[in-house]
């Protein structure tokens, strides 16, 4: 007896191929090498499950997030690793690239970091060149960019 719903299954497989094709197109847009398709935000969400961008672009710099508390015009460093030790597979969440581009997340983090006498919290992204072939990764060609400063309540 032939398998049931064969035509439907073929259509599902073809639909899935189209879906992955669309997801690839969105990945190219996110890489900055293709024009955004019409209705990009909706398509971004729709294709989220089909995007497979892994180690695609050159990542030749290490990256760190520096948090500082402001008090009386002076800034002092906050040990983020001690405050937020949670790891999941690839290090702390606040070191993910996605984190830097989201002011909402940075503001939530700032509010959590504000101490009793702190006036503000600011974040700086520190990057430095990777050194292949050696364990030590000294801060060569270091670059610092302030991501934002948030007033404490």
């Amino acid at each position, binding site marked *: 007896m032939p398998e049931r719903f064969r035509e439907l299954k073929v259509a599902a497989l073809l639909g899935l191929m189209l879906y*992955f094709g669309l997801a690839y197109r969105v990945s190219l847009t996110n890489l900055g090498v293709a024009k955004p398709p019409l209705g990009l935000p909706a398509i971004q969400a729709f294709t989220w499950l089909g995007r497979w961008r892994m180690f695609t672009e050159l990542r030749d710099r290490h990256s760190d997030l520096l948090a500082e508390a402001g008090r009386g015009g002076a800034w002092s460093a906050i040990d983020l690793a001690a405050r937020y030790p949670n790891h999941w597979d690839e290090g702390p969440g606040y070191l993910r690239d996605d984190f830097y581009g989201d002011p909402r997340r940075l503001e939530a983090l700032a509010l959590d970091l504000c101490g009793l006498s702190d006036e503000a919290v600011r974040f700086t992204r520190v990057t430095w060149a990777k050194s292949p072939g050696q364990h030590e990764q000294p801060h060569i060609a270091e670059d610092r960019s302030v991501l934002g400063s948030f007033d404490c309540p």
Partner: protein
Amino acid sequence: MPLSRALLDELFRPRWAGGWAISRVLFALAAIDAQIGRFPHVRDALAAPTIVFNAGPAHIADHVLFSPVAAWGVWGLGFAGLFGLFRGGSFAKPGLWVWALSYAALVAGCGLNVRVPERFIVWAVVALSVAPIGEPGLLKKDASPFARYLLLVVFGSLYLSTGLMKSLEEPHWWDGTALAYDLVDRWHAGGPLAVFLSGQPILVWMASVYTLVFEVGFVFAILWPRWSKWVLLMGVGMHLGIGSLMDIGPLGAMVLSLYPVLLNPEDGRRLWRALASRSPARLGA
């Protein structure tokens, strides 16, 4: 339409289903290994108020946050589900779904941690759900190839899209430097072997080109019965290489666990018979 009917008859001709029996066990073992490895981090990563900083677009953790006991309970439920999947029979699919739901519940609030491995798990669970994994005697019988086709589409898109992006959009994958930098990444790599390889331009170039050839060539080679076992062997080499050099979580083991299904079913049957003839008692022949 006799032609299309003949095509459909051939396309949906039952094929050896033993690959699913093997992959079910391997997938369960890979997931159990990942589940155990995450146990110490359940409280810190998934039940701490700081999870809100890892939130995804839905910001679920703003509204629902597990207590440590609840998080470990959900983790334990997933663990039990995986044992059901490992045991097989009527426990296989319910166990799979219990694990998948518990995993989703744990990581849903932690959006930054939902990435390629989690997406792959979703597709693997879909394929395993429509596969005959709960049926007895799979090693000796044929079944519908639909779930295998589904998995082929998923794997084909996974490898092809990442391979095309690397080979067409990042020239440094062709000279090996992109891989060399990844091998000294603070979170993904940095072990002695990875650091050594990152300083060997010829070796790292060979590994880089190997990756590109495999990822782009997979979808074409897997469709040809003569080539499918060789491209899968290349894939085993690539994933074992990544596993020994880098730490990218459970993705490699889970991907490899499903390779027995991707193998041409006739090759799989022959291989299984050859193995079973050497050790009939152990392999149930």
